[in-house]
């Protein structure tokens, strides 16, 4: 059964800007930036991006991350995906993870559509035979036709996103993590892709999504976590969380 369980996870991101070390003393920096900055054990200046996060995400969960910019949503997603190892605490994760943070990342502009399908497919961990199966499906969905034999440099941005999206959703995963609009732009993109996305998500056993669009959140999620300054403010159903989120904004 797919799951991700976090116990007392902290993430401190060190600040290595050479200039801030030399010109501004730590005290001044701390006073200016405030709560999120601190000095760690080795007397480095760090930004405390996540603080004491304990969270169980189990099979079947459709979890939304709510919070304003800088609340720690993206960092938490990266910890959930295993990309960021936490500074303290443990991450117990089971199941194949598909992080969809920036789905066009890894695309080569001078390579053809087909070459990109192969390259991206392999980057996503697909074997050659899996890619061979996925190709007709991607051709179908993208409706790019002969364009797939041309360098993707010649594509419009909409065509490019369709291709990236088709590749990212070519193979189902146990755990799907989606950040904002995956770099896909806006809700209009979801309109066009919602059928495929819906199918992709229904085949996954666990979803964590962050988006500023409440509409999308309500469409895909059943439960939400409210993050505030790197801490979990509350976990609950969407109505409760959005009510509390509204209070925080005031």
């Amino acid at each position, binding site marked *: 059964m797919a799951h991700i369980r976090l116990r007392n996870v902290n993430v401190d*991101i*060190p600040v*290595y800007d*050479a200039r801030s070390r030399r010109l501004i003393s730590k005290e001044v920096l701390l006073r200016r930036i405030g709560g999120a900055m601190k000095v760690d054990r080795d007397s480095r200046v760090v930004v405390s991006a996540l603080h004491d996060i304990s969270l169980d995400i189990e099979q079947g969960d459709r979890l939304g991350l709510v919070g304003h910019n800088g609340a720690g949503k993206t960092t938490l997603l*990266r910890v959930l*995906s*295993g*990309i*960021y*190892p936490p500074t303290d605490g443990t991450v117990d994760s089971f199941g194949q*993870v598909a*992080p969809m*943070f*920036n789905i066009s*990342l*890894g695309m*080569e502009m*001078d*390579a053809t559509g087909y*070459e990109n399908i*192969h*390259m991206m497919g*392999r*980057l*996503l*961990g697909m074997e050659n035979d899996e890619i061979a199966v996925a190709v007709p499906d991607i051709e179908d969905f993208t409706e790019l036709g002969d364009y797939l034999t041309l*360098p993707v440099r010649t594509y419009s941005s909409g065509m490019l996103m369709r291709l990236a999206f088709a590749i990212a959703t070519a193979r189902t995963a146990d755990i799907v993590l989606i950040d904002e609009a995956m770099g896909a732009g806006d809700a209009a993109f979801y309109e066009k892709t919602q059928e495929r996305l819906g199918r992709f998500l229904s085949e996954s056993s666990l979803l964590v999504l962050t988006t500023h669009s409440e509409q999308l959140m309500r469409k895909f999620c059943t439960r939400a976590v409210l993050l505030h300054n790197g801490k979990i403010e509350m976990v609950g159903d969407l109505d409760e969380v959005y009510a509390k989120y509204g209070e925080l904004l005031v």
Partner: protein
Amino acid sequence: MQDIRTGLRSWRLALHWAWMDTKLKYRRSVIGPLWITISVGATILGMGVVFSTLWGTTLGDFLPYICTGMITWGLITGLINEGAVVFINSENLLTQINLSATTCVLRMVFRQFIIFMHNILIFLLVVLVFGVDLSSATPLAALGLLLYLVTGIWFGILFGMICARFRDVPQVLTNLVQLTFFITPIFWKPEMLGERVFITTYNPLFHFLEIVRQPLLGHYPSAANWGVVAAVTVLGIITTWLFHRHFFKRLKYWL
């Protein structure tokens, strides 16, 4: 260690990727990656003419020497300079998709070897035109290249991490490599140094150079060459292992 295991197992992906990189770089040019061969070949020919005259030898005598020296040196410096920035250049990939950092290192190392394979053509041409006494020592070049492969991997992991944390180190390395080009016998011979031959003896890159260049020229590398390379390799792997164990967790936060 998990990352290194995953990375090494993904060598096919890395090789495919390195090949794509090379192909794409020259996609819109007519003769493509052969430009690598041509540009290095022209440098070798130019330097060969000048230095064979300066040293008072014939072109046929000197060209095989400088040719093997230059293409081997090209591989060594490629591995050093690219190894230093391997993680810095892959920042986006490493922080946004589940990709083993070691895969990035393999991709970089394979890319350098693909370039080297293009340059080997120059050597073959020199062999055909000027004749080189290939011998039973020549296949040893493969062993030398295998050691380069191993070195390229640990060096990339170790210095990729160090350079991600301390952004001045890549600059220092690039400058050092540039300086070393002149104090390593590539376009001159060690014996020309007379009593100052220690300049080469204490230069580890000289010993690395020799284990590939000498076999290509049909000679056996010296025991000292193998010894230094073996010592550096063992020491390097141990250092990388220790460093990786302690600091790998922080790599993503250094990017």
